[in-house]
């Protein structure tokens, strides 16, 4: 008997992305310049609020599509292998790292709020100063 097809559940879908690293960034990610990753298409639900947190949070229940901010968080948790302080500062990438979405500076694409699409290529380049 064929098992029934599971019901369509958008939050369980994944996005396939190509990540490229250069200028030394690759050293933080298994020393590989090119990674193919699958990340959740929607940001997973946050952990349940602790007792001390206000229950009147305005966090929406509807799943939010994955954006570059979430990707950076996901990379830190899943594929970063070295010193997080060379990748992130606060909630974003540290100064001196350029983020390019499909060969365009992420500043032209909404920075961290850019909503990722299946097949997107995101490049993380550390600027060089040598000569």
């Amino acid at each position, binding site marked *: 008997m064929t098992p029934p097809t599971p019901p369509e559940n958008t939050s369980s879908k994944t996005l396939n992305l190509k990540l490229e690293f250069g*200028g*030394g960034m690759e050293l933080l990610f298994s020393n590989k*310049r090119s990674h193919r990753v699958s990340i959740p298409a929607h940001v997973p639900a946050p952990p349940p609020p602790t007792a001390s947190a206000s229950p009147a949070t305005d966090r929406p229940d509807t799943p939010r599509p994955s954006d570059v901010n979430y990707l950076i968080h996901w990379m830190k948790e899943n594929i970063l292998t070295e010193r997080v302080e060379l990748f992130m500062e606060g909630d974003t990438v540290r*100064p001196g790292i350029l983020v390019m979405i499909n060969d365009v500076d992420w500043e032209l694409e909404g920075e961290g709020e850019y909503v990722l699409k299946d097949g997107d290529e995101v*490049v993380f*380049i550390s*600027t060089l100063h*040598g*000569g």
Partner: protein
Amino acid sequence: MALHEYRRYGRQMVLDGIGLSGQLKLKKSSVLVVGAGGLGCPAIQYLAAAGVGTLGIVDHDVVELSNLQRQILHSDTTIGLPKAESAKAASERLQPMIKVVSHACSLNAANARAILSKYDIILDCTDNLPTRYLLSDTAVLVGKPLVSGAALKFDGQLCVYNLGNTGPCYRCIFPKPPKRDGEGTCEEVGVLGVVTGVIGTLQAMEAIKIITGLRDEQPSLLIFSALSSPSFRTMKLRSRRPDCPGCGGDPSTRDRFVNEQDYVSFCGGEAPNLEETGKV
């Protein structure tokens, strides 16, 4: 132009987009190359060969044996000489018809404006972050395009800053310097000579395109890696940032900014000795 100049430059004067008028523009132009190292040597070489009329060379270092693997204007016989002098002699040997001015000093907030203002185009062939910010701020101040190259290990980068009326400056793209812990210099962590060769030659190309009017003003960053395939990628960059402390706002305050800025401390202080800290 004299007959021997037609003979010397004929192979580029025959090109659509250069011609006699382009060659005369090159002859009348002046380019300042800051740094006569791995990037500066090939840039100087091809700018001189192409007939750029006046070349300035800034470098305060002297030639060392460890430079010769990539700094192809210097040689064993010029070890110990100032790089600016060694590069000047080599470029005059290659091209006796142009004027070459050596500035064997280090560029700082006190002298940058006076030096940069004498040239039409500035090439950033330096090896450190404070000088990159200083060059960008000063290029904005004197209104000159800045062709910036960088190289380390197997990687290189190329970008033209402050081009035209909307081109970003270095601070538009990198408002904050990184903390001093991620990267060393070529002298510390190494570089492949051909990487500086490719980027420095492309810096000369960008300068020649700007002088002859062949360069569009679309801001972009070229990224090169000798180990990747494809080796080259072109990234589209943002245009000028209206609130940029380097190029935005009131032009009258910019001079003060360059004079007061302490570039070394802005970029995290003196470079640590990576060998002592055990990172190399």
